[in-house]
C-alpha cells in the first residue's frame, strides 16, 4: 500500500518524468494532466479526514527522518497549489510543446507540495530546493540571464535558510518542526540562544522566505522569471510557488514566534519581528504596484502585480493578529486563483497573437470572447471589486490592519488597491477594447484545454467571492477560533461586515449595464489608437501617449527620481563586481609562475611557524 | 702499535697534507687550467697516501685484516686510474667551452692544431661540393 501522502507529493513528479521520457504528443499531455490532477483528487478525498486528525508519514533517507503531515493548514496550502497546478496542466496542454517543460513544471509542483507537507527541515529544504531548481529550469530554457538572476537570489535564500536550519540544529539538536518548536518554546524562557543568534536566525529565514515570496528588496528576480517562461507555468509559478515563501513566514510564527517575541520584544505594542514583516509587505505592495503601472509588457505588468499581491499576504501576516492571519490566508487563496487566471489569460493572448506589448494589442474581446470573460473575472478579483474572492481577502486584510492600529500599513493597502485598479483598467482597455491592429484580424479563441484551465481558476474566484464564508469557515477551523464571523455569504469582523451576496446581486445588474455600454461604444468609437487626450498637440514618437503605449509615462516622470534607484541594477552591479573580483583573484593568484606558487608554500610554512612560535 | 701502523699513519698524514695543498692550489692559481695543474695531482697523491696509509695502519692494528689492505689498494688504484681521466675530461671541457688561457700563457699549439684541422675539413667539404 503506497502512502497517500506520497501519492500527493510524488504523483506530479513521476508523471512529469514519464511525460518527459515518452515525449509523445498527446500522451505526454494526458499523463501530465493526470499527474497534476491526482494530488487534488487525493486531497479532496482526504478533506474530511484532515479536519479531524492529521495524517502522518515518515521515511528515513540518508540517515535523516523525513516527516510529512497533512493537517488542516498543509491541506489548505496543498489544495490551493493543486488547484492551480491542475489549471496549469490544462494550460500547458495548449501552450507547451515539449517534455522538458512538463518534467520541470510538474517537478516544481512536487516541490511545492513537498514544502507544504514537510514537518521537518530536511524535507522542507529538499523540496524547497527541488521547487526552486525546477522553476529555474523552466526559466533557463528561455532566458539565461533572467534565470540566473532568479537562481542566484533563490539559492542565496535557500542557503540562508540552510544556515538558519544548521543553527537551529546546533542549538536544539533537532530538525523536525515539532521538536524545534518545543525546544524554542522552552528556550524562550531559558534564553540559552542569545538575542543576537535569534536575530540572525530570524534574518536568515526572512531572507530565505522573502526571496521566494518576492518581497522587497529581494523581488528583482520575479518580473524577469515570471515573464521568461511558459505563461501557463507562470500561473503556477506566481500563483502557487511563490506562496511557499508566504508559507515560510507562517512557519516562522509557528516555530519561532514565541522565542522571537521573547528575544526581540515589542515596539509600540507590536511584535518587533512581526512589525518588520508587515513593513516589508507594505513596501512590497506599494513599490511593486507602482512598477506594475509603468510596464508596457503584459507579462511584466502581471509579474510586478504578483509581487505586489504577495506583499499583501506578508503584510497581513505581519499584523500579527488572528484576523491578519485569516486575511493573509484567504489572500493566499484568492491571489492564487486570480493571478493564476491572469497568467492563463496572458498565455492565451500570447499563444494566439504572439504579442506581449500593449502597443501591439487591442480589440481582442470580439475575437476571444471566452478569454475576455475570464480576464474580466480576474480583473475584478484583482482590483478588489466585489463580489470576487480578491475583494473578500483584501477586505479582511484591511479590517485587520485597522484593527491592529497600523494606519500607515492600511494606507499602503489602499494605495496598492488604487494602483492595481489603474493597471488592470489599462490591461482591460488596451487589450480587449479599442481598435484592433490589422495583423490581429485572424486571431482565434484560445484552444480548449487552456480554456478549461481558465475555468478551473475562474470558478473559485466567483465561488469564494460570492460565498467567502466557505473559506473563512475553514480558516477558523485551521486557526482554531471564531476569527471571522458570519455565514457563507457574510463576513463579520470586530470592525465591519461584508455581505457578498448583496454585492453580487448589485453587481450583476451593474455589469449588465456596462456590457451594453461597451457594445454600443465599440461600434461608434473608431478612432486611431494614437489619438488620445492630447488635445491637438502633435503626436511625436518621444511623447506618444495612448492607452497602449506609455500610458502612465507622466507617472514615470513624476517618479523619475525614485526610479533611478533600482535594486535590480544594484544587484546587477554587485554581480558584475563579483565577477570582476573573480577575474582579479584568479589572474592574481593563479598567475602561472611556479615561483610564485612556491612562495605560497613558503608563506604557509611561515604562517605555521609564526603560529607555532608566537 | 707496530711499524706498519706507524708507517700507515705517516702516509695518512702526508696524504691529508696533500689534500690541503690541492685545495690551496684551487684558491691560489689564477685560472682553471693552472688550478687543475696544482690540484688534481695533489689530490691523487693525497688519496694514494691516505688509502695505502689506512690499509697499512689497519693491517698493523688489532682489528685489521688483509682485506683492509686489499680493499684500500683497490680504491687507490681506481683513483689513480680515474682521477687523471677526469682531469683530462675537465681540462678538455674547459678548453672546448671557450675558457681562454691565462694571460701569462706563452704558447697554444692546440689552437693551431684545431685550426689546421678545420681548414682541412673545409677543403674536403669544398672538394665534395665541387664534385
Amino acid at each position, binding site marked *: 500500500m503506497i502512502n497517500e501522502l506520497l501519492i500527493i507529493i510524488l504523483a506530479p513528479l513521476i508523471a512529469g518524468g514519464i511525460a518527459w521520457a515518452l515525449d509523445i504528443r498527446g500522451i505526454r499531455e494526458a499523463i501530465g494532466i493526470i499527474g497534476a490532477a491526482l494530488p487534488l483528487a487525493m486531497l479532496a478525498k482526504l478533506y474530511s479526514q484532515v479536519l479531524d486528525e492529521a495524517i502522518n508519514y515518515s521515511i528515513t533517507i540518508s540517515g535523516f527522518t523525513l516527516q510529512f503531515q497533512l493537517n488542516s493548514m498543509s491541506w489548505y496550502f496543498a489544495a490551493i497549489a493543486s488547484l492551480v497546478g491542475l489549471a496549469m496542466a490544462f494550460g500547458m496542454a495548449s501552450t507547451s510543446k515539449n517534455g522538458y517543460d512538463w518534467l520541470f513544471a510538474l517537478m516544481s509542483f512536487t516541490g511545492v507540495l513537498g514544502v507544504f507537507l514537510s514537518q521537518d527541515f530536511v524535507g522542507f529544504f529538499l523540496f524547497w530546493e527541488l521547487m526552486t531548481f525546477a522553476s529555474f529550469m523552466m526559466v533557463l530554457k528561455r532566458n539565461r540571464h533572467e534565470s540566473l538572476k532568479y537562481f542566484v537570489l533563490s539559492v542565496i535564500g535557500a542557503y540562508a535558510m540552510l544556515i538558519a536550519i544548521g543553527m537551529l540544529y546546533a542549538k536544539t539538536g533537532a530538525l523536525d518542526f515539532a521538536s524545534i518548536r518545543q525546544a524554542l518554546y522552552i528556550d524562550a524562557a531559558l534564553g540559552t540562544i542569545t538575542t543576537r543568534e535569534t536575530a540572525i536566525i530570524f534574518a536568515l529565514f526572512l531572507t530565505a522566505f522573502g526571496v521566494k515570496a518576492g518581497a522587497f528588496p529581494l523581488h528583482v528576480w520575479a518580473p524577469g522569471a515570471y515573464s521568461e517562461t511558459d505563461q501557463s507555468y507562470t500561473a503556477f509559478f506566481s500563483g502557487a510557488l511563490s506562496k511557499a515563501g508566504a508559507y515560510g513566514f507562517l512557519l516562522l510564527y509557528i516555530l519561532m514566534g514565541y522565542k522571537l517575541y521573547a528575544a526581540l520584544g515589542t515596539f509600540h505594542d507590536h511584535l518587533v519581528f512581526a512589525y518588520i514583516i508587515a513593513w516589508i509587505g507594505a513596501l512590497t505592495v506599494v513599490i511593486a504596484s507602482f512598477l506594475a503601472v509603468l510596464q508596457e509588457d503584459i507579462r511584466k505588468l502581471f509579474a510586478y502585480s504578483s509581487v505586489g499581491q504577495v506583499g499583501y499576504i506578508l503584510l497581513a501576516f505581519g499584523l500579527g493578529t488572528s484576523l491578519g492571519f485569516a486575511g493573509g490566508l484567504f489572500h493566499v487563496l484568492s491571489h492564487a486563483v486570480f493571478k493564476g487566471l491572469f497568467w492563463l489569460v496572458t498565455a492565451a493572448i500570447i499563444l494566439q497573437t504572439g504579442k506581449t506589448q500593449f502597443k501591439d494589442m487591442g480589440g481582442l474581446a470580439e475575437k476571444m470572447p471566452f478569454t475576455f470573460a475570464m480576464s474580466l473575472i480576474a480583473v475584478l478579483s484583482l482590483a478588489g471589486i466585489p463580489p470576487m474572492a480578491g475583494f473578500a481577502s483584501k477586505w479582511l486584510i484591511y479590517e485587520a490592519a485597522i484593527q491592529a492600529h497600523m494606519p500607515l500599513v492600511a494606507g499602503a493597502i489602499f494605495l496598492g488597491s488604487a494602483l492595481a485598479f489603474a493597471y488592470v483598467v489599462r490591461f482591460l482597455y488596451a487589450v480587449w477594447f479599442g481598435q484592433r491592429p490589422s495583423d490581429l484580424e485572424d486571431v482565434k479563441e484560445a484552444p480548449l484545454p487552456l480554456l478549461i484551465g481558465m475555468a478551473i481558476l475562474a470558478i473559485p474566484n466567483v465561488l469564494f467571492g460570492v460565498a467567502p464564508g466557505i473559506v473563512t469557515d475553514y480558516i477558523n477551523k485551521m486557526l482554531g477560533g471564531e476569527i471571522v464571523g458570519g455565514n457563507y455569504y457574510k463576513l463579520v469582523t470586530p470592525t465591519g461586515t461584508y455581505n457578498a451576496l448583496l454585492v453580487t446581486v448589485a453587481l450583476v445588474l451593474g455589469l449588465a449595464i456596462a456590457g451594453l455600454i461597451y457594445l454600443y461604444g465599440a461600434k461608434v468609437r473608431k478612432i486611431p489608437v494614437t489619438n488620445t487626450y492630447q488635445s491637438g498637440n502633435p503626436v511625436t514618437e518621444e511623447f506618444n501617449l495612448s492607452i497602449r503605449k506609455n500610458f502612465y509615462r507622466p507617472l514615470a516622470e513624476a517618479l523619475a527620481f525614485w526610479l533611478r534607484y533600482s535594486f535590480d541594477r544594484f544587484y546587477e552591479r554587485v554581480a558584475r563586481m563579483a565577477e570582476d573580483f573573480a577575474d582579479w583573484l584568479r589572474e592574481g593568484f593563479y598567475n602561472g609562475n611556479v615561483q610564485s606558487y612556491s612562495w605560497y608554500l*613558503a608563506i604557509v610554512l*611561515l604562517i605555521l611557524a609564526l603560529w607555532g612560535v608566537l | 702499535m707496530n711499524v706498519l701502523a706507524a708507517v700507515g699513519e705517516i702516509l695518512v698524514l702526508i696524504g691529508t697534507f696533500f689534500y690541503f695543498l690541492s685545495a690551496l692550489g684551487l684558491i691560489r692559481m689564477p685560472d682553471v687550467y693552472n688550478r687543475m695543474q696544482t690540484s688534481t695531482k695533489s689530490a691523487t697523491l693525497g688519496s694514494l697516501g691516505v688509502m695505502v696509509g689506512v690499509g697499512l695502519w689497519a693491517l698493523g692494528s688489532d682489528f685489521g685484516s688483509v682485506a683492509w689492505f686489499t680493499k684500500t689498494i683497490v680504491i687507490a688504484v681506481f683513483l689513480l686510474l680515474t682521477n687523471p681521466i677526469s682531469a683530462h675530461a675537465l681540462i678538455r671541457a674547459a678548453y672546448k667551452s671557450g675558457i681562454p688561457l691565462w694571460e701569462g700563457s706563452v704558447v697554444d699549439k692546440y689552437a693551431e692544431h684545431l685550426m689546421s684541422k678545420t681548414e682541412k675539413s673545409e677543403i674536403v667539404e669544398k672538394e665534395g661540393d665541387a664534385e
Partner: protein
Amino acid sequence: MLKRALAIITLLIIGYWLAQGLAGVPFGEDKMVVGKYYLEHVKEDTGAVNAVTAIVVNYRGFDTLGEVTVLFIASTGVGALLWRKKKKRTAKTEGSLVLTTGAELLFPFVVLFGTYIFIHGHLTPGGGFPGGATIATAFLLLYMAFVTYEIPHRAFEKTEGLAGIGYVLVGLIGLAIGGYFLYDWIWQTWGWGHDNIGRLFSGGFIPIIYTLIGIKVGTELSGIIDNMLKEGVSE
C-alpha cells in the same frame, strides 16, 4: 633584492621553528623503540648481519617494493616523456682516446663491483640500489665516451620487467608458502643458511631480492641515461 631579503627572513623564521621542534628530539641520544627490536632480533629473524638491509628488504619490505616501483616509474616516465618516433644520440663530439679507452678498461670492473655490492647487501652497507647505480655508471661511462653507443633497449626493458616480476613473485611465493606477502620463505620456512650467518649464503631471500633489484635498478638507470642523451629526429 627585496625578494631575496624577504626570502631570507621567511626562511630564517621557518628555520627557527624547525629548530624549536628539533630541540625536542635531542641529537645523539638513544631514541630507539622499534629500532632496538631490530638490532636485537635481526640475525635470528632474517639471517642478515646488516640490520639496515634486513629492515629494507625484510621488515619493511613494502617500502622497498615501493622504492623499486618509484624508480621504475621514473624510468618509465622518462621513457614516456622523451619518447620520439625516431631518436638518435645528441652527442656531437667523440670523447678523446683517454676517455674511450678508460671507459673500456673500467667497464668490466665497475660492473663486477656493482654485482659485488648487491650480492653482499646483507653483509655490508651495499644493496640493490647502490649496486644497480654502480652498474648504470658503467654504462654511463660508455655513453660518455662513445657518441654512438647505445644499450640494447628491448633486452633491457624486458630484463627490467622480468626483474620486477621476479621480486613480486618472490613476495607471492611467500604468500603461498608462509601465508604472508613478502614472507621470507627461504629463511623462515626452508631454514636455509641458518648456520651461515655472516657468510655469503645467508640472509634468506635478501640476496635474491637484492640481485633482482640490482639488475632492475641497473637497467632502469641505464635506460634513463639513454633516454636523456637522445633527441627526436624529424623524418
